[in-house]
């Protein structure tokens, strides 16, 4: 029996195997129940100190990680870039090493630069969880999306999932593409040419230019947020035109050959990428995603904390003794 481990860090779904992704999804299942209890807390990470190091604004992800940490009984500290020594010009590594000198165990980091999580992970002993790095990856979002799909449709492998919107700038899109491909889903992307990374087909992804084609093909749509700065930067002509061409509207969904599941990583721009009637309608699992986010993050923290490779044999012996 091989004992599966995630290793020291969670940097992206690109670096995980199918089995590791499935381990995280399966481990999230029992953690859902913890959040349904009257006392929403288990002592699993008692005595562990986790720093949430956020160099970029985030509400949902930071709160979700913090709930996950607290429900596992870890001690947490939130560091936001604003008002910290980062503003005084301290480098990322110096910040992290100073935190580590205070004997922390894990860092959850969001950073505007792609690759920042990996850079940090290679330089500190603590476990690093990527909470979003630039345009690279947002692995826990990809995982919670897959968990939500699996909850509703019973599986992920074999399903047709289309990610819609600003693929070019989206770390959510990248984590979804990697994760979904690994577990055997058929993956497509749909969005304006100007917001589509060159050569994405080479990953084994179908590209749709028209949202109608995507809706006709897919079992699941994962609708990305269109950042309004993109219009100012000239990627799209106008918000109104984007909605007319790419908006996921009720009328478009009504023409679909099958019931679609609609995901959105949030925060939503109603009337830009998604119709309010869709966001609040029966196809939408957007709030279910938020609930699952806490369970996924609990699973990741649980699996990483104390996951020392040299202890694998001990764990193996213990599991065998129990079964």
């Amino acid at each position: 029996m091989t004992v599966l481990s995630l290793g020291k860090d969670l940097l992206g779904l690109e670096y995980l195997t199918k089995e590791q992704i499935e381990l995280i999804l399966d481990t999230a299942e029992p953690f859902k129940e913890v959040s349904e209890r009257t006392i929403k807390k288990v002592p699993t990470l008692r005595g562990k100190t986790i720093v949430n190091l956020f160099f970029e604004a985030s509400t949902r992800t930071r709160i979700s990680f913090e709930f996950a940490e607290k429900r596992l009984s870890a001690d947490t500290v939130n560091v936001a870039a604003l008002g910290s020594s980062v503003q005084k010009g301290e480098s990322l590594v110096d910040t992290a090493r100073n935190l580590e000198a205070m004997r922390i165990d894990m860092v959850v980091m969001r950073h505007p630069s792609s690759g920042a999580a990996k850079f940090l992970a290679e330089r500190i002993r603590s476990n690093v969880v990527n909470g979003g790095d630039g345009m690279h990856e947002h692995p826990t979002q990809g995982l919670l999306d897959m968990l939500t799909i699996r909850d509703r449709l019973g599986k992920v492998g074999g399903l047709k999932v289309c990610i819609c919107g600003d693929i070019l700038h989206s770390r959510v899109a990248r984590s979804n593409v990697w994760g979904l491909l690994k577990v055997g889903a058929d993956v497509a992307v749909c969005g304006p040419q100007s917001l589509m990374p060159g050569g994405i087909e080479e990953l084994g992804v179908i590209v749709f230019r028209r949202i109608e084609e995507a809706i006709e093909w897919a079992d699941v749509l994962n609708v990305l947020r269109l950042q309004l700065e993109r219009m100012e930067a000239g990627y799209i002509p106008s918000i109104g035109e984007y909605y007319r061409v790419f908006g996921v509207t009720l009328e478009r969904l009504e023409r679909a050959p099958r019931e679609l599941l609609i995901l959105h990583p949030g925060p939503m721009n109603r009337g830009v990428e998604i119709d309010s009637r869709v966001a609040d309608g029966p196809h939408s699992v957007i709030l279910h995603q938020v609930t699952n986010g806490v369970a996924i993050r609990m699973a990741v923290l649980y699996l990483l904390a104390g996951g020392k490779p040299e202890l694998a044999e001990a764990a193996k012996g213990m599991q065998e003794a129990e079964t």
Partner: protein
Amino acid sequence: MSPSERQTLLDAPGVAGALERIVQQVVEFAGGTERLVLVGIQRRGADLAQRLAHMIAARWGTAVPLGVMDITLYRDDLQTVGPRPIVGETRLPVDLDHRCVMIVDDVLYTGRTIRAAMDQLADFGRPARIGLCVLVDRGGRELPIQADIVGTKVDAHADDMVDVLVNELDGRDAVELVKGGKT
């Protein structure tokens, strides 16, 4: 492992007989079936709890609430073990306040599982009483914990393994002692 090292402590009829005695004592312990909740420890304890629930339904005509509990998240050795043990399902169907909760497990050994189970139960409510019933008590306690109801006892050495087999998972019912089985 050669078969000669295996010693049968209870065969299938032996297990059935033990469960007959256990179920009687469980109902006596709880003063009837009214307030009784059975909570099986994953995994074989969960199967045994389900058997007891069926027997109570057949004999007393009551469907007693049946829960399952995985104690992994409450283990006291999580800081020292490597890649994480798989976490199983925990599902407690009723409010435990003022109930008589009977924890059901296959083997009682160090007592650490039961310590974790009691800590977890406390996070779900405040039962009027908690009892413990096990199919085998193999000795070797590391904590001051004893079972209220015991199917059979064996004084096993630390190197031995006590193997409880249940039909649901293993295709047959038995309790076996494997000499030097814990390597």
